[in-house]
Each structure stands twice: as C-alpha cells, then as structure tokens.
C-alpha cells in the first residue's frame, strides 16, 4: 500500500458550478506534493455540461435550454453532453499523474472499483465494460470521463438515482424529430437508474457507501475532510470560466452550425443520421447502431418499409 494519503471530501448538495469548478481548480493547481483528492458531491439544481471538444450550438438547442432555465458549462475533459441534477451522485478523483497507472484502462479500474462495489453492495450486478462504462445489471448507470489536466489525472463519474430522459432529449439539437424519438427510446432502454432497477437509496446512503468503498478500494490511507475556504473560492472562479461565453464558444466552426449527426447512448450503441439516395429521391434516416450493426431506424420517408428491408441488420459502415 502506498503511504501517500488521499483526501475524501463529501460535500452533499452544492451549487452546480462547484460540482465542476472544484475538481478543475484542484487539477490545474496540482503538483507532485499536492494531496490526491476524491470528491463526492451532488448539484443542488440542474444544469448541462458539454465535453471539451463539442460545439455548443451543435449539440444543444440553446433556446430550449434557456426556456427550461438550464445553465450550461463546458468541462476540460471529453465525452458528450450530459444533463446533471440532484438525482445523481458524483465521484471525482483528482490524483497526481505520478501516482496513477499510465494506461487509461488501469486508471479507470483503479478509480471505478468503488462505484462498482457500491452497485454490488446494494444488490445489483455492477460491472465495468469497454474500459470505462459502469453498468448495473447490464445497462449503463453512469457517465464516466477522464483526462489529464495539468499534472493531474482526473476521473469523474456519477450514479443515476433517477433520470429525466424526456428533458435530456428535449435539449438536444437534433437533425429531425425521428432522430430525437429514436435516441429517446434507445436511451430509455440502454441507460438505467437505481430507481428503475428497484433500488430506492437516498443520496446520503449512497454517499456513505461510496465513502466506504473508496476507503477499501484505493489501498491508500484515506482521510475524510472538508474543503478550505480558499479552495471553494478557487472552485467558484473556475466555474465562472467554465460557463463563460468565451469558453463555451470554443471550437465554433466557420459558417452554419449544423445539428449533431451522431449521438453515443452507451458503450457500442449509437444513433446516426444519414441521407440516402434511393431512385433519385433523398431520404433522411435516423438509425440505431449496436456494435456496428443497424438494429432499428426511423424516417419520415414514405418508403420506410423498403428502407427497413435494405438497411436493418446490415453494417452501418456500408451506408456511412
């Protein structure tokens, strides 16, 4: 067991900005002499968060976000747009890169043991799939991301107690309604919540289980503590940057911003939008792709039956 201690900080519900700002500021300030930290927290109100390389207007319908009063932040690690609220508990691991494995898969194993053990403890079959996808009873139950920020290695994830599928699907900037419908139905099927799986645990009980699980799984001395006032201020400053117009506008392309054409729902399950020319007519088609194979599709085309015969059970790569 390494002697380097780890701080574990349970904040309970905190302002949404801090749920992103705290781990970003800790990571950016980290040096080899800093203490590794695990934060367990939950946002007091809902918000949206996009991945570092996403084009804001391409993935989110900003008018809908404004109508629903949902603030948006951009994180410094990758992945897709996520809807986050108080029905989710976050775990955020900020470790110096010299004290984590070099390989990404090993980093995720190290950091995700704890949430998987929690799922097993509450009677579900917790497992790790495709390097960093946490599943319970074979459905996705969490969103996980990781990256190197400054000298830190950061892994962030959550557990979904409940999830507003309808709201998530409303804020997507999609090519057409068929894409939204197919993505919504696929998300309901492939993304689970503890509530849907019959586990009615509270945030407090999960916080306690996660704390115990991190203490057991990290094989390092773990000290439960609280943030210093200066750290909270640094987190707020960081949150301001992450939600600034300048940072949200990163990667803005030249010309018209088009809606997303692909959406990852879970490991190996995607929704894609394609235009297909059949007998001199262009059809707009949204397809569900499981492990590279088209398993479902939706289209407004009057030739839907023909399109289904042509495309279903074929490799998506034949059409893209």
């Amino acid at each position, binding site marked *: 067991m390494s002697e380097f201690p780890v701080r574990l900080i349970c904040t309970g519900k905190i302002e949404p900005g801090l749920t992103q700002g705290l781990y970003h500021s800790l990571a950016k300030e980290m040096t080899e002499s800093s203490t590794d930290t695990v934060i367990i927290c939950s946002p007091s109100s809902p918000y949206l968060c996009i*991945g*570092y390389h996403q084009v804001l207007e391409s993935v989110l319908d900003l008018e809908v976000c404004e109508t629903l009063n949902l603030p948006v932040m951009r994180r410094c*690690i990758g992945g897709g747009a996520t809807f986050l609220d108080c029905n989710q508990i976050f775990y955020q691991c900020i470790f110096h890169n010299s004290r984590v494995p070099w390989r990404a898969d090993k980093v995720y194993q190290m950091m995700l043991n704890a949430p998987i053990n929690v799922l097993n403890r509450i009677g579900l079959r917790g497992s790790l799939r495709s390097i960093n996808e946490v599943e319970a009873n074979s459905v996705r139950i969490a969103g996980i991301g990781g990256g190197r920020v400054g000298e830190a290695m950061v892994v962030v994830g959550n557990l979904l107690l409940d999830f507003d599928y309808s709201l998530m699907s409303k804020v997507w900037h999609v090519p057409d309604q068929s894409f939204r419908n197919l993505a919504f139905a696929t998300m309901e099927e492939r993304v689970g919540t503890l509530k849907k799986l019959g586990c009615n645990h509270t945030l407090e009980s999960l916080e306690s289980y996660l704390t115990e699980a991190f203490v057991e799984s990290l094989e390092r001395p773990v000290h439960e503590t609280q943030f210093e006032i200066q750290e909270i201020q640094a987190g707020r400053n960081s949150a301001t940057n992450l939600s600034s117009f300048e940072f949200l506008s990163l*990667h803005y392309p030249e010309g018209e911003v088009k809606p997303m054409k692909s959406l990852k729902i879970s490991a190996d399950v995607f929704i894609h939008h394609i235009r297909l020319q059949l007998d001199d007519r262009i059809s707009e088609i949204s397809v569900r792709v499981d492990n590279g194979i088209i398993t479902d599709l939706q289209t407004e085309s009057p030739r839907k039956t023909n399109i289904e015969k042509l495309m279903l059970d074929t490799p998506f790569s034949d059409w893209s």
Partner: protein
Amino acid sequence: MSYEFPENLFFDKKHHVWCLPESELLVRIGIDPLGLASLGDLAYLSLNQNGSKVSRGQPIGMLEAAKMTGELISPVDGEIVERNQHVLNDPFQVNSEPYGAGWLVVLECENWSEDSKKLVTGRKVEAWSKDELKRYRDHGWIE
C-alpha cells in the same frame, strides 16, 4: 506500432513531444509514438490559435481519444505561426504518421538555442529512447 526516434529531431523527455528546427526562428512540433500510446487513436484535436503565445510546459492544445483526454504541452517558449489543418480535420493522421503528415504546429521560438539544450537530440536519442522503451515495456504500458 513502430517506436522510432529519429536522431535529427529534438525530444521533450517528459511529454514525448518532438521539435524539428526549420530555420533560426521556426520549429515544427509534433507528438512522438510513446506520447500517443497512452491515449490511443485520437478522435478530436484542438490547437491554440495562430498568434497565441506559448510557454514551455504549458498546454498548446488538447488531444481527445475515445476514453481519455490529454493536453499537448509545449516544449519551448514562442508563438504559434502555423497549425496543421489536415490533422485538425482528421486527427487520426497524428497516430498514423506522427513524424510526417501528423505534425501539429509551427512555433516561432523566442530562444531556441537555450530551449533546445533541455531537449534530447543527435546521438543521445538512441540511448534515451532505448531506456524509455524498456521502461514502458517493463511496466506493461506497451508490448
């Protein structure tokens, strides 16, 4: 994957970034195969704008693979004068040709003669790269 380290390049030992001086002022920058190995195939890549000032040890861009993101750290002080549009459009080119078409930026260096002393080049490259490859293999990081 082939792990070659040409002796005409200058390598940042810590971040596995390479430099190729093209004139007294201009240096082409890329990432070496060991730097890429920890991330895997790149899905997205962003580079700071032309004209932006960069400092040695500070990020000049962001690399995103399927499972992990990482910063691209500048090995020298200077200013970005050119970005490789081809890799911005197709980041996988960085994986397929890290020393060729997969270059990332050209920097106008403030003090190349001093900065280059902190990099490995020439006959020292072979010994350094052998040690690095051994270290990576001993840890099971690469095959």
